[in-house]
């Protein structure tokens, strides 16, 4: 056994050891396995990003290109040097923030959530799996060939060992193992490559002497225009060479997953410095070594072995072992990232999303998260989730959709999953710590109006938009609302306005109430009390609420009771700062945020609450119905929730270097709003139920359903 083999054995054992060391963290939960628990710092993030994007090409292809094309090959390095910082500066922070807000665990899942359409994932995931499959196969083959070359063992065994080690630590520790091994591999690659470069320079008597010797072979090899000179320069190839490794990084899912795994969004800043520093040192080296191989190895049969043969020529035996480990590191760092991504995309983005919707991860001992339905899926989900009873009184939650293909694309069992996801979020301490933002994948709730039309409320996890009100002011709409679901909200607002026009009595009724004024007086000192809260009148009549009930329970005898629920109301002014500005000069946009005074959940309202001013005692009485007041969110907590929601909403559109200022409108704090609902209870011959109908938009929630025994009678 030669010394190179020993180095490789130590290297393989170290990689496997990292896999074992990250076993606990990697298997803690799905986020731990797929994103390393979003715990990675700047150095690991940057070097992992770089090493996974640089495959065995850097040791084999780059040297070969330089050996045949001379300095022309450095065009590839010119783009590659900036690829890391470009990726981190454009995508890094934004992808880290939004992926957590949207609850995305894979790059393609992030795309689907960011630009809501299930077709994004339906199209991107198969393409990515297919491409990555071939990519990872080539890396495996390269690993086998590299090991065979170094150790001399048969190719089949070399391939088995190389693939076995990669698979072992990848599936043991998940992303964390991949990240830490990539980090170590990046350092090995850097040491190995710099060692070869220094040895080469010593062997040829310095860079200048080497260039002069190359110039004697062909002066054009020293130019950036190729071995045939400027007259035959291929500008398209040059532009492509620069772009492929600079902006090309931005589209690689196995690279971009680094952003989502950062400890904090600001990690991207420091990581960019590490990335550029690493690239400056590492990337030009194999190209220069490849050019100098023309002098050291003028009769090389296989140019792809230029770097390896140069290392074998200029370095002592023990150093060659490190270089060999570097070559294996370059191959393995890409292969493991690709392997993890291909497995993740196949399981998460395809199988789990479109075929099976259970706990897929349990098959490999990982507790992958329950799939949270996509906003568009709620078209299906909404139909199956809320109306638990069909025409014949059977449970529609297990109803099979008519179109099998659609069911596959939208994911079966969304109802069960949606309910399970909600329970999981309730049980998951992370979501409590993060105030629900982490769980805040946008979802849209649909309701059936009594007139048969559908009605939508966009719910972004811990907040909701309450659509449609006669007071909707387009000018008051924050820009952030142009994100997903905005069109539906607008449509709904228009449809509601039309509905309002058909009711001549409503305008008069609204004229009788007075709008909440900005000068209500001093805020009370009590954290839970308010002065003159606004009690909103329902836009849905009792008859409409009963109609909703009877659509679910045909022939039911029911009664509707109006109830109110307390909400904190914050009117926030949101301003964004441009580059190089420390404060915003723009007027900004107003945002009405309602915070549930019981649950603490915030939602963005597309209207300013209007109603009758009532006494603070009514507000307090409603709070008292919920028992211990100490468990209710205080005024300051509600204020923080409202600001957090406003920030989360605006951050979707944040551009590079842009800042966000959020302040209370006109300097006023929170106010109280009593939001109306209808509580409808009743029964028909077979079922008894209680449904809560939203007093503003007629969306409804089934509180209770019971199947009556044949002997039971109507209440």
């Amino acid at each position, binding site marked *: 056994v030669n010394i190179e083999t020993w180095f490789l054995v130590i290297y393989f054992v170290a990689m496997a050891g990292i896999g074992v060391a990250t076993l606990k963290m990697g298997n803690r939960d799905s986020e731990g396995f797929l994103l390393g628990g979003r715990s990675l710092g700047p150095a690991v993030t940057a070097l992992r990003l770089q090493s996974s994007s640089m495959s065995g090409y850097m040791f084999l292809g780059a040297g070969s290109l330089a050996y045949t094309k001379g300095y022309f090959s450095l065009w590839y390095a010119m783009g590659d040097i900036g690829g890391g910082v470009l990726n981190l500066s454009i995508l890094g922070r934004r992808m880290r923030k939004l992926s957590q807000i949207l609850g995305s665990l894979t790059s393609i899942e992030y795309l689907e959530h960011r630009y809501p359409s299930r077709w994004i994932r339906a199209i991107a995931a198969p393409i990515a799996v297919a491409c990555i499959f071939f990519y990872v196969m080539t890396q495996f083959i390269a690993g086998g060939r590299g090991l065979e070359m170094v150790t001399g063992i048969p190719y089949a065994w070399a391939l088995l060992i190389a693939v076995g080690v990669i698979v072992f630590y990848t599936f043991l520790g998940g992303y964390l193992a991949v990240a830490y091994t990539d980090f170590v591999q990046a350092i090995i690659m850097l040491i190995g490559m710099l060692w070869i470069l220094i040895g080469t320079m010593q062997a040829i008597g310095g860079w200048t002497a080497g260039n002069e010797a190359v110039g004697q072979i062909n002066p054009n090899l020293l130019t950036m225009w190729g071995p045939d000179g400027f007259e035959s320069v291929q500008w398209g190839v040059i532009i492509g060479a620069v772009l492929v490794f600079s902006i090309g990084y931005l589209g690689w899912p196995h690279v971009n997953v680094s952003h989502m795994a950062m400890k904090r969004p600001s990690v991207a800043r420091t990581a960019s410095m590490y990335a550029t520093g690493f690239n400056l040192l590492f990337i030009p080296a194999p190209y220069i070594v490849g050019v100098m191989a023309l002098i050291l190895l003028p009769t090389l049969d296989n140019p792809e072995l230029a770097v390896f043969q140069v290392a074998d020529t200029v370095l002592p035996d023990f150093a060659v072992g490190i270089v060999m480990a570097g070559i294996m590191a370059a191959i393995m760092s890409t292969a493991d990232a690709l392997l993890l991504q291909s497995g993740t995309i196949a399981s998460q983005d395809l199988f789990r999303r479109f075929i099976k919707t259970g706990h897929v991860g349990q098959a490999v001992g990982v507790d992958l998260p329950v799939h949270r339905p996509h906003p568009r899926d709620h078209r299906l989900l909404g139909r199956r989730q809320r109306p638990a009873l069909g025409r014949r009184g059977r449970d529609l939650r297990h109803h099979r959709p008519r179109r099998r293909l659609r069911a596959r694309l939208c994911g079966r069992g969304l109802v069960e999953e949606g309910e399970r996801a909600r329970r999981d979020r309730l049980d998951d301490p992370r979501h409590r710590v993060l105030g629900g933002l982490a769980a805040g994948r946008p979802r849209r709730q649909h309701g059936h109006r009594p007139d048969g039309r559908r009605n939508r409320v966009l719910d972004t996890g811990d907040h*909701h938009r309450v659509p449609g009100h006669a007071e909707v002011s387009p000018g008051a709409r924050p820009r952030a609302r142009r994100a997903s679901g905005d069109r539906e909200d607008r449509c709904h607002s228009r449809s509601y306005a039309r509905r309002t026009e058909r009711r001549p009595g409503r305008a008069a009724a609204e004229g009788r109430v007075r709008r909440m004024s900005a000068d209500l007086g001093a805020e009370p000192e009590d954290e839970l009390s308010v002065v003159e809260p606004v009690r909103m009148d329902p836009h849905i009549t009792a008859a409409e609420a009963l109609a909703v009930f009877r659509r679910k329970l045909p022939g039911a005898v029911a009664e509707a009771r109006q109830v109110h629920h307390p909400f904190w109301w914050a009117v926030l002014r949101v301003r964004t700062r441009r580059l190089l500005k420390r404060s915003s000069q723009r007027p900004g946009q107003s945002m009405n945020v309602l915070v549930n005074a019981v649950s603490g959940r915030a939602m963005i309202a597309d209207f300013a609450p209007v109603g009758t001013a009532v006494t603070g005692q009514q507000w307090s009485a409603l709070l008292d119905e919920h028992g211990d007041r100490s468990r209710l969110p205080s005024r300051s907590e509600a204020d923080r929730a409202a600001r957090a929601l406003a920030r989360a909403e605006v951050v979707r559109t944040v551009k590079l270097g842009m800042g966000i200022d959020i302040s209370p409108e006109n300097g006023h704090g929170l106010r109280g709003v009593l939001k109306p609902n209808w509580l409808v209870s009743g029964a028909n011959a077979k079922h008894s139920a209680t449904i809560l109908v939203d007093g503003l938009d007629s969306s409804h929630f089934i509180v209770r359903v019971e199947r009556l025994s044949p002997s039971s009678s109507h209440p």
Partner: protein
Amino acid sequence: MFGLPAATVAIIFGIPAIWVIYTLVFVYLSRGWKAEDVAEDRARPPGGGDESGGTTASANGGTA
């Protein structure tokens, strides 16, 4: 310089220099990110509130 044509020297040192400048400008412009991270962490409500129910479910007056 280094036995290379001037154009080659200009390109292989000039473009990396542009990337270095880009990195420095990015680091300068993003100097407030860490503070914003801290501010956002503080802005998150403690406990995060209850996730139960939707708009109507949360507005049910405790009956659901």
